[in-house]
């Protein structure tokens, strides 16, 4: 469903991603873990065509993302939802219009249908009464849930989550992970989840990639990462430091 093949990206002459390769099977969730600055967010942006790599390719449903014309890329993005790390809510639109935005762009629904879908979506993220509010009136957790609602409202078969629980309290974090679990189990969504919350993603991801300094240092299933003897992976998975990461 998603394939990343030999991706390399330089930033001011310095490699930030080097020969990154992995696959995500249909209906599964891949956990992308690693220390800050490892290139995880950049990798997500390359996967959905927001950033061009210097070499290598990504494939979504067998279609090569790099080199697509703007119209083809736009069409492909109807199949991908992206939850941004910093929410990326449109600050000049209220919550209802933020969530309605992708539906309005698709142009497949009437205004009445869109408003009904938005309300259902708000109910599903436990925020039924905030449709009239603007992003600057919301807390971090509320923004995250609104961002989540906007990413999934067009029912895309692929959803990319960039650190969905960063900076949130444990209760809101667990709610977010429940949403992610529901997306996978009820809708069969294929996804990649970046997270530093190993406890949270342990149960919702089927496979894991550990990135360090732009390189894949581990790629395998949940069982494999739990039993790996690879020091870096063990260190990150179990949350102890022996100065190998960094």
């Amino acid at each position, binding site marked *: 469903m998603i394939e990343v093949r030999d991706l390399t990206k330089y930033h001011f002459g310095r490699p930030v991603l080097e020969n990154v390769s992995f696959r995500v099977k249909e209906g599964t969730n891949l956990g992308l873990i690693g220390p800050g600055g490892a290139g995880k967010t950049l990798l997500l942006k390359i996967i959905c065509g927001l950033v061009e790599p210097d070499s290598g390719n990504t494939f979504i449903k067998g279609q090569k993302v790099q080199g697509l014309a703007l119209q083809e890329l*736009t069409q492909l993005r109807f199949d991908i939802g992206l939850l941004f790390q910093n929410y*990326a809510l449109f600050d000049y639109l209220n919550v209802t219009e933020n969530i309605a935005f992708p539906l309005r762009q698709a142009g497949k629904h009437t205004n009445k249908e869109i408003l009904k879908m938005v309300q259902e979506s708000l109910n599903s993220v436990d925020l039924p009464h905030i449709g009239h509010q603007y992003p600057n009136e919301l807390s971090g957790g509320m923004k995250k849930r609104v961002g989540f609602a906007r990413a999934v409202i067009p029912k895309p078969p692929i959803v990319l989550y960039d650190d969905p629980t960063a900076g949130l309290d444990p209760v809101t974090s667990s709610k977010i992970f429940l949403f992610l679990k529901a997306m996978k189990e009820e809708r069969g969504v294929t996804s990649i989840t970046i997270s530093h919350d190993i406890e949270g993603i342990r149960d919702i991801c089927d496979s894991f990639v550990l990135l360090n300094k732009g390189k894949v240092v581990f790629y395998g299933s949940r069982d494999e990462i739990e039993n790996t003897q690879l020091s870096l992976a063990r260190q990150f998975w179990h949350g102890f430091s022996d100065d190998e990461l960094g």
Partner: protein
Amino acid sequence: MSNQKQAADPRMQEENDQSSAGLVSAFFAAIGEPIVYVTRTVKELSALFLVTIKYVIAGKRRPDEVVAQMFEIGNRSVVFIAVTLGFLGMILIYQAGFQAMKITGDLTLLGALFLQLLMREFGPTITALMIATRVGTGMAAELGSMVVTDQVDAMKMCAAEPIEYLVVPRFIASTIMVIVLTIVAVLISYLAGALTAYTAFDVNFRTYFDLGFVSYFDIIIGLTKALAYGMTIPIIACHAGLNVFGGSEGVGRATTQSVVNASLAVVVIDFIISGLGYVVLALF
């Protein structure tokens, strides 16, 4: 003796050669860098302009957003423009009248010549410089903050094209409102000049309001300039905003870049249209 020794030392000679080569290369880099920057920027601005025109012709119609931008550019700038151009009219008439009194003492053509100058030069150009400062920086900062907070990427992920969604309404609104503001600016400056001429030099209104020197050609040149400025300012501002990198520091850089580039563009366009205008006038 010491110099002879240095010249004879091959290592010293090599170092001297390298240092000369470094100076030459630094010299050419210093000349080449701004040329490369200007060429690249003009190329990118031309591409953005063409894509914007394409969406103006064939894109989605969003009249509400255009009206909102017209309000932002026009209504919110009118006081600023009126005050600036009003004072400019008073100063110019006072200075012109003062000089004329010293040389000929004849003030009968004061209003007529001032109106011609206002229509051809000061009206559109000063208005555009004010718009570049007030509106251009606002556009660059707004779009720049949208870029650094990933809102532009979110727009792309929602299958909305940022140029169509963000640049086109600003472009249409600015093109219309710079023309409107130029007309308002010319009228206010001319009226302020009339009051100054009457108060300071006792020039009566009948003498001042003389349209004898103004031709259709002056009106066409003035409106052509206003049209060109109205299209150029949002393109430069939006280009600066959409190319922001590096967080809030980058937004600051973009606003500075926007106002500097837009002001330079206004002056260059003024020169080109004025020059072409005189060529056309000579031919016909």
